[in-house]
């Protein structure tokens, strides 16, 4: 793995490899470093602060809707502004989950991912801990995979934090019960809960592209702050470009283009077209930027 095999001295005479030494028999304990990485990430004050902000969004939305509809009018007003599903929250608290995810997916969630992913390698390089991990030796490919797995885990946890917070606030402030889909049919509350879980998973998967992009940026610099800022900057830029009609031809390749397709899971029957396009696009980003991150990181001189 790593650069070591890419451009090692090419077996000239006296440099030829010796038979493997007997000691290093044991193969990788992926779980061990991964577990430690999770532990390290989720113990950081910064990670907890990000999750706290994400948990606060549904609380604010819920309270705002409650106050605004206290007089009996429907949320979002007659114009139907605001995030998707917001007008239905007063009927069913479960809709706060969908609203909160729709509200956080364009910015708060990917920003949080950008911070964690951008800092993943660059932050270690900045602190100098990267050289000690590599000398341990963590292995460059192994470390990168561990970091990616951790960022993905964070995507899932962040989404679930939003979902659980929204469900709690929704249950406390609004009635719960059977719900009406976008298509007008009625599904049971249990079915609705399952849909909510499915939506959370799709939202988490929608963040894979940003995560891969952030990790790649993170291998380019030794400043954690610069990597975070670049990733978040790219996120904003792409969102803006996605709104410019003249760039129509490019839109399907923007990682955020199909993000709100998760709402199609609330149709009956479910409309899969954009959902699969979204997941396919995220996979493409993961492959492209994952490979780029690998190519960069495994050949990089670690000078910090």
């Amino acid at each position, binding site marked *: 793995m790593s650069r*070591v*095999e890419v451009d090692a001295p090419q077996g000239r005479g006296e440099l030829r490899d010796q038979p493997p030494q007997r000691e290093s028999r044991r193969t990788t304990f992926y779980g061990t470093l991964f577990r430690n990485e999770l532990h390290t990430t989720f113990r950081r004050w910064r990670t907890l602060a990000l999750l706290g902000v994400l948990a606060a969004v549904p609380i604010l939305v819920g309270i705002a809707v409650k106050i605004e509809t206290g007089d009996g009018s429907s949320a979002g007003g007659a114009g139907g502004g605001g995030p998707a599903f917001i007008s239905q929250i007063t009927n069913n608290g479960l809709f706060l989950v969908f609203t909160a995810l729709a509200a956080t997916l364009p910015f708060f969630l990917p920003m949080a991912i950008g911070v964690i992913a951008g800092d993943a390698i660059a932050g270690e390089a900045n*602190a100098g801990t990267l050289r000690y991990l590599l000398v341990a030796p963590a292995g460059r490919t192994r470390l990168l995979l561990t970091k990616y797995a951790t960022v993905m885990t964070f995507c899932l946890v962040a989404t679930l934090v939003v979902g659980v917070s929204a469900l709690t606030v929704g249950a406390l402030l609004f009635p719960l019960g059977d719900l009406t889909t976008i298509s007008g049919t009625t599904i049971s509350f249990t079915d609705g809960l399952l849909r909510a879980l499915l939506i959370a998973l799709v939202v988490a998967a929608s963040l894979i592209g940003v995560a891969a992009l952030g990790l790649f940026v993170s291998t380019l610099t030794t400043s954690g702050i610069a990597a975070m800022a670049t990733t978040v900057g790219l996120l904003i830029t792409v969102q803006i470009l996605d709104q410019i009609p003249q760039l129509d031809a490019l839109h399907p390749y923007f990682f955020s283009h199909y993000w709100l397709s998760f709402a199609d899971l609330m149709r009956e029957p479910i409309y899969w077209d954009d959902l699969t396009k979204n997941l396919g696009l995220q996979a493409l980003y993961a492959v492209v930027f994952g490979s780029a991150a690998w190519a960069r990181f495994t050949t990089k001189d670690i000078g910090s």
Partner: protein
Amino acid sequence: MGDTPATEPESEPDSPGVDDDVIHDSVIHTRALTKRYRGGQLAVDGLDLTVPAGSVFGFLGPNGSGKTTTIRMLMGLIEPTSGAARVLGRPMPRSARTVLPHVGALIEGPALYGFLSGRDNLVRYDAADPTADPRTRRARVAAALDRVGLTAAAGKKAKAYSLGMKQRLGLAAALLQPRRLLVLDEPTNGLDPQGMREIRSLIRELASDGTTVFLSSHLLDEIEQVCTHAAVMAQGRLITQGAVTDLAAGTRGRLVVTTPDAGEAARVLKEQGASDVVITEDRVTAEPPDRELADLNTALVTAGVRVRGFVVERASLEDAFVALTGEGFDVAG
């Protein structure tokens, strides 16, 4: 790997194709190792370094002489521009995965996770090593902390550590497993004299267990006190390497006569064949001639010179360094 005695660096399995004994008796061996940075700056220039097994090897040179770049190449952190390096008999960086578990390293000072306790820092570095057994982790971490005297502070967050404590924790990370090679870049940085002495005795202890220690330093007396071998670098090039005694022996000692009759003493010394005679107040120093020095003393006393002190000051490594480089021990420009 925990069951491997750290005492057998010579048990390296030889490959049939390689017959150069030097490569296999040495723990580090480089050939024409060169690193040119992207800016075109030549940091290390054709380095041929041989570190014998079991030695305490001092790697000397002013700041900016290429020591750290060399260490980074040896540890597989940066790719050489040309040339080759072998560590524990295997090529680097290609064999990093098999070589590095046997190597403990402290490179350019410690780097720690400030938000983790000292103990958790070590747990993390140990988890990064795929050959480290998680079942013995707690015990090994505790032993390493104990060895550097950090047991009492193990639960404290690393950001609250003093520079000396951080340095100790970095050393502890290098000692998490029995190692065959320790690479210590300025290990006594930031330590008080007592801490320096502790580290030096730790290094001697490890060396007596058979661990090869590669010690980079800009402190000449530190190298002189603990090292058996040394190499001197300046401006990316290796100036000399060998046993410390040989290096210092290359420079001859100076005769120092302390006397109130300095002028007369200088005259007698010149008469007796001493060269380069220098008078500073009541001290006369000279290159001694090749003959019995006791006769020289007799000559002085016979001539009525009142001798207070008569001694040959042994050449220090610093003298050797100055003699070799023709310059002081300053930062390379």
